[in-house]
């Protein structure tokens, strides 16, 4: 186990470094730059621009800029935002809770709903429910998140007026219910794709399990259907889902980006988009590194959980 963790740690660090190099390169290769906003300032001269660029260290060769950023990053100094001069970590820290709130709640929706749909679809294979779930998943996977978000806002906020069109909570009202009320639409929109994916994987995993010999053994013992399904089948069918859950995080992060923008959700995803627009390199790099860390970390956790949940697996 220790050997496994050390090896995975080494691999993760290498991966993070690669992400940082590629991210940095792509970001600086994109046309435009953080100086673009200054060019519109009245009375700005080329010499003045050059001075600012020099001050920000942007006139140095890219590898040098990277090295300067990198050596500070590893010791926890992630720099300051070009936009408002706040520390990057502080900026991210202020936005992360909203994103986590959205991601966790949509994951809960996705896992609970997706498991239920998948299990029922497998148990009643080819039934009307199963067909509807299959078609529904296809539709859910085909709908672009931004469009679905707008439709939800149009129907439930504009036409019906049941749900707020965006934001974390009503200003001046920070009760739990108010937060939950604001969360319903964005969490559902973000969870939709994951529900679809999760229910499809769950269905095939469950189908795979309920035709196995040990399920027949469980039934031969006289156990009622409910026990056979939950204790013997679902438990086995959920094992491969742990890995799927680990792999779902990037999808979720990408979806959060869009959902937060549509629902004016003050989260990390929107900060990321805004910062890209401003070419706010330190903030973009900071969010990139944090996201990569989350994805790599969740996969590691999935691997460890896998070994905990399945007695046949020993990590080496």
């Amino acid at each position, binding site marked *: 186990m220790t050997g496994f963790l050390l090896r995975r740690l080494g691999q993760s660090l290498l991966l993070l470094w690669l992400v940082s190099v590629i991210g940095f390169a792509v970001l600086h290769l994109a046309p435009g730059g953080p100086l673009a906003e200054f060019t519109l300032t009245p009375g700005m001269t080329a010499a003045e621009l050059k001075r600012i660029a020099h001050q920000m260290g942007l006139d140095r060769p890219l590898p040098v800029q990277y090295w300067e950023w990198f050596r500070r990053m590893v010791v926890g100094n992630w720099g300051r935002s070009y936009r408002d001069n706040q520390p990057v970590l502080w900026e991210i820290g202020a936005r992360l809770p909203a994103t986590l709130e959205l991601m966790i709640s949509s994951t809960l929706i996705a896992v609970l709903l997706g498991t239920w749909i998948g299990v029922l679809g497998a148990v009643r294979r080819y039934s009307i429910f199963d067909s509807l779930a299959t078609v529904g998943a296809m539709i859910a996977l085909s709908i672009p998140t931004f469009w679905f978000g707008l439709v939800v806002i149009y129907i439930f906020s504009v036409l019906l007026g049941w749900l707020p069109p965006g934001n974390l909570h009503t200003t001046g009202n920070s009760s739990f219910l108010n937060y939950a009320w604001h969360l319903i639409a964005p969490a559902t929109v973000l969870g939709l794709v994951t529900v679809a994916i999760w229910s499809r994987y769950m269905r095939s995993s469950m189908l795979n399990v309920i035709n196995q010999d040990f399920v027949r053994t469980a*039934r031969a013992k*006289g*156990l009622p259907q409910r026990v056979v399904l939950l204790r013997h089948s679902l438990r086995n069918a959920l094992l491969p889902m742990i890995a799927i859950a680990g792999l779902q995080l990037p999808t979720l992060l990408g979806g959060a980006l869009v959902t937060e923008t549509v629902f004016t959700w003050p989260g990390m995803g929107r900060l990321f988009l805004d910062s890209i627009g401003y070419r706010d390199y330190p903030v973009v790099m900071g969010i990139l590194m944090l996201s990569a860390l989350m994805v790599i970390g969740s996969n590691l956790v999935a691997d460890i959980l896998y070994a905990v949940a399945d007695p046949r697996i020993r990590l080496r």
Partner: protein
Amino acid sequence: MTAAEPVLQVDGLRVRFASDAGAVAAVNGISFALDRGETLALVGESGSGKSVTSLAVMRLLPPPPVCEVGGRISLAEAEGGVRDLLALPEEAMCRVRGDRVSMIFQEPMTSLNPVLPVGEQIAEAIRFHRAASRRVALAAATDLLERVGIPEPRKRLGSYAHHLSGGQRQRVMIAMALACNPEVLIADEPTTALDVTVQAQILELLRRLQQETGMAVIFITHNLGVVAEIADRVLVMYAGRAVEEAEVATLFRRPLMPYTAGLLASVPRLPEAGCKGREGVRFAAIPGTVPDPLALPSGCSFHPRCVHAKPGLCDSEVPDLEDAGPGHRVRCRRWRAIDGS
């Protein structure tokens, strides 16, 4: 209750599976009776319907429309009378399964749940059928493991299937099946996946447990060596029908159905003393293969492979099961002629 009353009686059991090419009759009217404490062997090639018969008794076949089961399966009640298992609602059937009739399977590795400790899996049936607490059920599971010859049973409670050897796994399966002292145990090729030496141990164990508990056993196998060792009576199946039924000694001494004779002849034997090496020894085989259940031959299903088949007689009608002696029934139009020759 009289001892002569069978504990389980199957009458005219039919099983049909729906398939894209039409309904497949896997079992075509099987009848047999099982006395208390008796071992009945169901023998036949793959596809003869012996496993389907046992799954039908357990009501473990898929529900209609995939699979249609007809006939009567009567289980004797303690207070007299019988109960038709095929007419029971699923809930009542759950209380019969694993309690009064239980089953062990061919492949002990895949038949055990890989992520539950074996102790839990044995205790489960006791907890459900006897409404016992977890602690009581686990204590009972320890006793059961000891009875089936697992060393250090208390330690083994927490083991998983992958910790055990093939023979031990089958012992665990047997412990699980015996958890509630069933009146009938169905053993579906329980030794096929095991080494020969382990096979003998498992057979010995089953025989011993049967003597201790007085349960009746339906033993499904294609291995006639195993039949000779464990069975009291044999039912030979071919293409979903019973073709011969007899006491084991009678069957081995005087097989009447040409198919049974062929099966017996195909058992490999060591060359006679004095024979030179392995040369010249060939396995006797029954020519041809098991017929396609979608296109069964007319008349006797076995006639295309039968050396005694007579055109016009064997291919016209399905022969009846005829009495050929005490407890000996055979489905062959020509058994008298063959027996006399």
